[in-house]
């Protein structure tokens, strides 16, 4: 299971970002969200959703082996993390976040609240596609 962005469905409302902040931090504060929406205006005039697809490059790059896969999501172990921020640099989607409230980088834990609350079907769950080629199926 992973999250998939369908950029052309996004209308930039940022409902996903507010939901993420409320679900994970109990705050009405989208700046704490663990995904971003890039508004590309005036040209080319569209949106790009930047979210974690659990590609694991953060874990691969971590010199302290502080990022581990658990229930489909890569999770930062705050006790093992030294705050070197190499993972922030290598993240291909710019979704390893440094927040003022935390000493270690924070990332998506695959809670799925963004997909559940998106009113546009722009973020969806997809099943792991490794075993069934390009047969993606939307389940939520």
């Amino acid at each position, binding site marked *: 299971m992973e999250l998939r962005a369908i950029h*052309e469905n*996004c*209308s*930039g*409302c*940022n*409902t996903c970002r*507010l*939901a993420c902040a*409320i679900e994970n931090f*109990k*705050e*009405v*504060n*989208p*700046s*704490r969200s663990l995904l971003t929406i*890039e*508004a590309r*205006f*005036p*040209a*080319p*005039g*569209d*949106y790009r959703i930047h979210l974690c697809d659990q590609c694991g490059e953060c874990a691969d790059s971590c010199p302290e082996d502080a990022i581990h896969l658990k229930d489909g999501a890569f999770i930062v172990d705050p006790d093992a993390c030294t705050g070197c921020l190499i993972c922030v640099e290598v993240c291909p989607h710019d979704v390893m976040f440094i927040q*003022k409230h935390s000493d270690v980088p924070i990332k998506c834990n695959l809670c799925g609240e963004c997909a559940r*609350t998106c*009113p*546009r079907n722009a973020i969806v769950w997809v099943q792991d596609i490794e075993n069934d080629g390009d047969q993606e199926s939307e389940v939520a």
Partner: protein
Amino acid sequence: MMYGYAGTILRVDLSNATIRKEPLSKSLAENFIGGRGFVAKMLYDEIPSGIGPYDPENMLIAATGPLTGHFLPASGKTHFGTKSPATGGYADSNMGGHFGPQMKYAGYDVLVITGRAISPSYLFINDDTVEIRPATEYWGQGSITTEKNFKNHLGDDYQVITIGPAGEKRVRYACISHDFGRQAGRTGVGAVMGSKNLKAIAVKGTGSIPVADLKKAYAKGKQAYQKVMAKPGFKGWTPEGTAGITNWTNEVGVFPTRNFQTSHAGHYKNINGEAILNRLKITDKGCFGCPTPCGKYGHTQTKLGSAYVEGPEYETIALFGGNCVLKTIEEVAYANYLCDELGIDTISAGVVIGWAIECFQKGILSRDDIGREIDFSDLDSVAYLLNQIARREGIGDLLAEGVKIAAEKTGKGSERFAIHVKGLEWSGYECRNAPSMMLAYLTADVGAHHNRAWVLGHDVAGAWTNVHDLISSETEIRAQPKAVVSERSAEYVIESQDKRSLFDALGNCRLQMMELGFEAEHYAELYSVITGITKSWEALLKISERIWQLTRAFSVREINGFGRHLDFPPARLYEEPIADGPNQGHVLSREEIDDLLTWYYTARGWNENGIPIKETLLSVGLSEVAEDLEARGLL
């Protein structure tokens, strides 16, 4: 702690470069809710009576409401208020996008700008850091260009409002622009911003808004999204947004055309919502938290050039496609783009240009006066005039004053077809056979604007329907019977005014209720769980009525000789029967309009001249206002 609100009013005086933060008072929040309520109360209490709109003492207020920035459908609204360049009385203009929520995350419910900067400046806000910074390098730039430059300079996570050249030149219908296509369009708020030498405000917030019961509020917010998305209008209304009603307004003959000479445009299928989808649209573009985005962002190509542009929305289609008779959606969109970049309200601009073209056709304005020949259905004429207006060059200096002043200066009978009320140009519904909607325009507190009350459903479609039901009607001209003029119109208008205005106070969009039929009571529940102040919808409506009486009182105080005569439309709308189309031959008489006003005044508790009586003000908790007006001899 005040739940739901950010808790602070930010006051910036540009004359002496002072920045002051003060706590939002509990009584202001409870008695006036937010947004439009805050604007009305602060303007009445704080503006020195008798000042001009461009005097440094005038206030430019940006106010959010208790629902702004919270998890519920379409909580992205910001309400601007000032003393009106258009009418000299009360003015406000509501804007979507993402600016208001960002203000609250930065910690501010309200921004109050007074004074005048010595040189072009912008206001920088990053949470607690507030600075007045130089903006000389941006002065003269278009709104879209300026916003992009600010984003490049400060970062994409800043939300920016700007003015264009029209605001700098104090065009009386200059707008405040935001998010590459959202505007506080009406009443000239951009001109007031320009008069303060304020080019832009950039805000970034990383704070949290406190909520009385977050768990419950989040659950109710999610339910609200689900309910909105389950409405039939979700799929019927959202794809085309406001442009979707272009077919209906033409079928029933309420589409202003050729400077309101008629109310049906034969080419309407070439400028409707479908044309936008098929020929312009790149993406839906939503305001903060919106599940039903009206914004259609696209790209247009015309003989004058190509442009990225948001829209056109219905109002722009009506005033450029109908009133100026531009024949294709591409041309309407290009005129829309020019207005957005120059920082001009498309509604007022479409009325002013329609008037100018008719003046030229009648020989009232000459080729020498204008600098060239102008005509309906001619994009060159529209583009030429927009550029002249925004820079106040040549004929533009006259037209920049708005259609009321331009007609008064021009004379020769041109006042009869200068389509405005109180000085604000008329928006996109022709009302000579729509008595309730006519009354809505006449009594709107900012001037001839449709957003205070939308009651056409009572005039045309018989019983009330939601707007999404109107867009699906068959596309054919439907000859309309003469509308019945009755006392009920006052009731419809007042109900709509109090209901719709309440959303401007709460700080979220009303379209989910008005267009999709999402039940109003949900908003009272959301307000109560977010703020911890339990109020029913009826109790909130009472406050809305208080705000309505207050804005009328402001205009009574600020406009010399205010009264019934200012609630009248121009002569065209009660003397000339509609030329053709579904409403051919219909017109409301002057007597019928007088009746409508009398019924309305009586129901509002106003005297025969349209002035609130003392008992009315006392009954809505405005005793200080009653005392003030009485002391001035105005009651």
